[in-house]
């Protein structure tokens, strides 16, 4: 049952991702993106990462997407656009390469199928059993991973400064 559901949600996520690229209007792209993010949240639920799933829905599918939609509508970008993707040989080539890569992966994992949980899976299971869905994220975030957490703060500052520099009016 879980496997079937996984494939359904994975297909929706991938289809949504293709739709983001191929949709004609920005609003359409955005709605496809909501579909992708929502099905990712469903996959998180299947993985028993309930807290992540909730965060995914509230923060990404909810807040950030709504903000995107506001911005696009306020800037009046809602009309259809000419597709600016280059067609022809390159898009064909990229699909061939994707196909080849998929083939390599299928062969690789077909030969050595992973049947039992890997070390990573076991580590996550242990953390979930010990701290619960919220604790498994919250506990290491402020103890083991406090340095990466602080670096993330610097990263956000840099991103804000960069965005402001580029968006600020000035010059000609």
């Amino acid at each position, binding site marked *: 049952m879980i496997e079937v559901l996984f494939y359904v949600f994975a297909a929706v996520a991938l289809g949504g991702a293709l739709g983001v690229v191929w949709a004609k209007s920005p609003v359409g792209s955005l709605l496809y993106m909501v579909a992708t993010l929502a099905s990712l949240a469903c996959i998180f639920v299947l993985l028993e990462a309930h807290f992540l799933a909730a965060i995914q829905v509230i923060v990404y599918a909810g807040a950030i997407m709504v903000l995107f939609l506001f911005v696009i509508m306020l800037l009046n970008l809602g009309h259809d656009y000419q597709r600016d993707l280059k067609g022809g040989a390159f898009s064909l080539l990229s699909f061939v390469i994707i196909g080849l890569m998929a083939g390599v992966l299928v062969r690789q994992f077909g*030969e050595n199928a*992973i049947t039992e949980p890997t070390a990573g899976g076991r580590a996550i299971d242990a953390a979930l059993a010990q701290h619960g869905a919220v604790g498994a994220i919250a506990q290491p975030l402020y103890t083991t991973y406090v*340095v990466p957490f602080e670096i993330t703060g*610097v*990263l956000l500052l*840099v*991103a804000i*400064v960069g965005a402001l520099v580029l968006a600020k009016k000035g*010059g000609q």
Partner: protein
Amino acid sequence: MIIDFSRQLHYVWALLPEIILCVSGMVILVVGVTGKYREAHLAVEGELEPGRSDDLGWLALLSLLAAAVANAWLYGVTEVGVNSMIAVDRFRLFSNWIFLLAAVLGILISFAYVYRQRLQAGEFYALILFATAGMMFMAGARDLIVVFLGLEVMSIAVYALTAFNRRDRKSAEAGLKYFLLGAFSTGFLLYGIALVYGATGSTNVAVIGEIISSGEGSRSLLSAAIALLTIGFAFKVSAIPFHMWTPDVYEGAPAPVTAWMSAAVKAAGFVAFLRVFMVGFGDHSIYALWYPILWWLAAITMVGANLIALVQTNIKRMLAYSSIAHAGYLLVAIAAANETAAAGMLFYLLVYTLMNIGAFAIVMSVSHHSEERLYIDDYVGLGWSQPLLGVLLTVFLLSLAGFPGTGGFMGKIYLLLGAAESDLWTLSVILVLTTVVSYWYYLRIAWVMWMKNPEVTGQYDRITVPLPMRFALLVSVGLILYIGILPSGALEFARASIEGLGTFGGGLLGQAP
């Protein structure tokens, strides 16, 4: 002092240089929006008195100096608990010297440009400091998450700096290209990290190395992970076929940013590449998996970049392809994966930083700190009308080409020594042959400069080299010649920095895949 990583507070000491840079970056940001600096970027040409934005640059240099002192202080520190998130080893400290040197040279050469192009000085210098801190995080990271975050801090700052010149359409285009492709490649890196965690249950490079050498970890997952990590790193160091962004970005970005990032971003990418692959995936069983990939990557990069560089007419694009070629030489060191090669790589990165920033700085002053006169034909007769610049540029080009007596030559010798130790004979031959090819396009500029008679005279009279840049150029040339003639000191330093880095798998297969 002893740093004990079981106490969280001690991370503050271990990260002192990075913290200094981040804090002073914030201070410069705040100073940059106060009072007299605020409207500088809105000024019309001629209204701006010179030197107004310079004090922000000096402030940035001062904080780099403070970070350098902190870096020197870390040499006296011993760490307890080897598998911590941040490494306090000599490898990291040596890499930090490279980043600090690159940032100092980069800021010294950007004074005049920032003034002429009326850039927002506060943000400009602060972003350089943040990016340098990000590079240091990458070099010191013993955890893949820190590698990723350091890479992002560096990259986002560099994207913004690339698009910094709002008056130049090319700059915006380059920034957008770099940002989109960079974000895409970061996705690969992150996916690779996730798969490594899936296979080994850890993101700590040292722990990953132990788990892999104990024979655990699904090899299928690890091979997919290594492929993805290689793509992520190969993009950052701009190896062919992940190099498409390089010429456009180097051409479009503000000239001092190009000079600085062509050296520093590449160095940061390579040291993180080296640590992750040699410490994490250094075991023999897994080395056999990734060694052929790196072999081909190095070979294609060396051959392709040198051939494309032959036909460039724009000097910035030529230097961009030359920097891709140098990435190819450095990839040989990673494919060789032994201590000699690793020391050679650090040595080469140091020399490369000096000569590349120097060459770009001269291109910048010839183009009047803006975006003109960028073709190789514009250099006709430069040597005789500006002898000092001519001689300096010739030295930088000879060093880039790897001429005996310069640092570039010794760097290539040590890369070859490392390759020979792992029996990578075919790759060594390719390295030597492509170096010979590269002589043509480096020496062509020198030939145009000295041997060709100019059709118009006096076109170089307006070239001015500001004092800070003159200082940076002389320091670079002095160091290149010093390292080229007396290389043992720098090499010993690089060798000592490699000790205790971790396991090395190199020298196992030897022949071409």
